[in-house]
């Protein structure tokens, strides 16, 4: 809704647009409480928001005209402002806003917060909870990001063909980050984490719906591979956390809880992704995620995962991919062969480096295993992580 209003009246009206939206929802809470929910609640909200916006603008216009009259005593061509609330325009506005939010002038963490606020309608409270920071921090981040948008004169026009490619890269990174914030978040609120993942998937899906002026799709194959990747990952959302909110590791998950509908949707996105075009990191990550949706263990599964991590790392290094590769190496060639691979990574300040080495040394050298788990425990920042590691240390000591 904020996106819709801004796409008509400009990004500099973003605060005013947020006010209009808040007023609208307040009105909904009051009216629906008294009269019941209308037949088409979404349409109702958009209609009321439209009226609120137009009223707000009328005030501003009256003011401007009065001042203007004093100054020029001339004619004023007053045109009634319009707000198009058709579904096509809503989708289009959200896309424009998504590209504006991912403007290079804004740091990527701020992009995530801003997207959650203006595109996903999260409250400041929810964003702070999801990103494990304070409300004050989020407010600061949002304030600065909006200032940047104004200062840089960002408009809600979509970049041209040349700029589009580059900006689409940034959009995909932000959307994937948004997804990972939800997927890996240590926030105790399970529903909130799920919402984050679903919103990221919705935004990526939005990208596939866009048709430019010429009816040409902007969709690149990596948009589909990112969608596939998120579907495959999200299929395990239910299985990876137990009833008590504890993290369940992949090997211990009940594969009956994996969401087959999401896996199937992921498959069809992935087929589209592989139809044409260059191989991106999202293709490789989606392929890795696909192998993880395969139940049971086989040598073939882990050999393929290892090969894909090799290729992913050759394309782009990241510590988490390096650690996952070492784990896959252990699954193919055994723990002892994988220990030098893991130790060679020298990621000594990384929690997962130590928990991986702890895991690899189990049954090989219990003393070293405990040593690594203890270092991991020191690096852990959340209760959930500490609980998992403490259980490991406990079982080492008992054995």
């Amino acid at each position: 809704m904020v996106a819709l209003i801004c796409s008509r009246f400009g990004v500099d009206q973003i605060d005013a647009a947020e006010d209009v939206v808040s007023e609208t929802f307040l009105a909904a809470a009051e009216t629906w409480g008294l009269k019941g929910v209308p037949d088409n609640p979404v349409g109702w909200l958009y209609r009321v928001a439209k009226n609120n916006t137009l009223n707000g603008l009328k005030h501003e216009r009256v003011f401007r005209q009065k001042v203007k009259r004093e100054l020029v005593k001339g004619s004023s061509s007053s045109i009634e402002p319009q707000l198009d609330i058709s579904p096509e325009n809503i989708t289009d506005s959200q896309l424009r806003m998504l590209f504006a939010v991912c403007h290079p002038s804004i740091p990527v963490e701020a992009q995530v917060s801003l997207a959650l606020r203006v595109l996903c309608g999260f409250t400041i409270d929810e964003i702070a909870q999801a990103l494990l920071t304070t409300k004050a921090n989020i407010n600061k981040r949002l304030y600065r990001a909006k200032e940047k948008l104004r200062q840089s004169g960002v408009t809600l026009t979509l970049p041209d063909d040349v700029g589009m490619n580059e900006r689409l890269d940034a959009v995909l990174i932000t959307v994937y980050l948004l997804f990972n914030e939800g997927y890996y978040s240590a926030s105790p609120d399970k529903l909130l984490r799920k919402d984050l993942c679903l919103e990221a998937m919705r935004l990526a899906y939005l990208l596939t719906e866009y048709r430019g002026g010429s009816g040409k799709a902007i969709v690149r194959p990596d948009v589909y591979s990112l969608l596939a990747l998120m579907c495959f990952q999200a299929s395990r959302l239910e299985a990876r956390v137990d009833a008590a909110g504890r993290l369940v590791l992949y090997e211990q998950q009940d594969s009956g809880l994996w969401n087959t509908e999401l896996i199937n949707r992921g498959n069809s996105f992935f087929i589209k992704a592989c139809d044409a075009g260059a191989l991106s990191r999202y293709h490789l990550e989606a392929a890795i995620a696909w192998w993880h949706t395969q139940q049971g263990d086989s040598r073939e599964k882990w050999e393929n995962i290892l090969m894909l991590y090799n290729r992913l790392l050759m394309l782009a290094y990241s510590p988490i991919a390096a650690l996952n590769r070492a784990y896959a190496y252990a699954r193919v060639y055994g723990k002892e062969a994988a220990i030098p691979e893991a130790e060679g990574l020298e990621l000594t300040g990384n929690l997962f480096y130590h928990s991986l080495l702890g895991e690899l040394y189990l049954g090989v050298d219990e003393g070293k295993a405990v040593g690594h788990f203890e270092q991991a425990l020191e690096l852990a920042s959340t209760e959930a992580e500490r609980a998992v590691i403490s259980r490991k240390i406990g079982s080492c000591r008992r054995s």
Partner: protein
Amino acid sequence: MKEFALIFRVPSGLGAEVSPAEMQERMTFWMNWMGGIAAKDRLVNSGNRLGVKDSKWVGANGVVSDGPYTEVKEFINGYIVVRAENGDEAAELAKGCPILLGGVGKVEVRPLVAPDNNE
């Protein structure tokens, strides 16, 4: 960190047939070796394999000969570029190279020279 080319040299005349299974295995060795270097964030460039068929070498005065340039019955069949503190460290990375598995190949470690370096 400096950049080094790791150049793979193999003896010529080893034209033995390789079965698809062996080929697959060799590919796995290469991918694991290069993946391992990339996992340490030391891979600068995956380089290229260099083919033998349809290769030429060109000398002065318009002399063109068929085949890769072999000196002392050895030719280059590929290279990658890695990042290392010094030559010794780059040599350490080269030690796992599958070209060495047969006992006859060699890896040559050569620093890349920046355009402004006139040493």
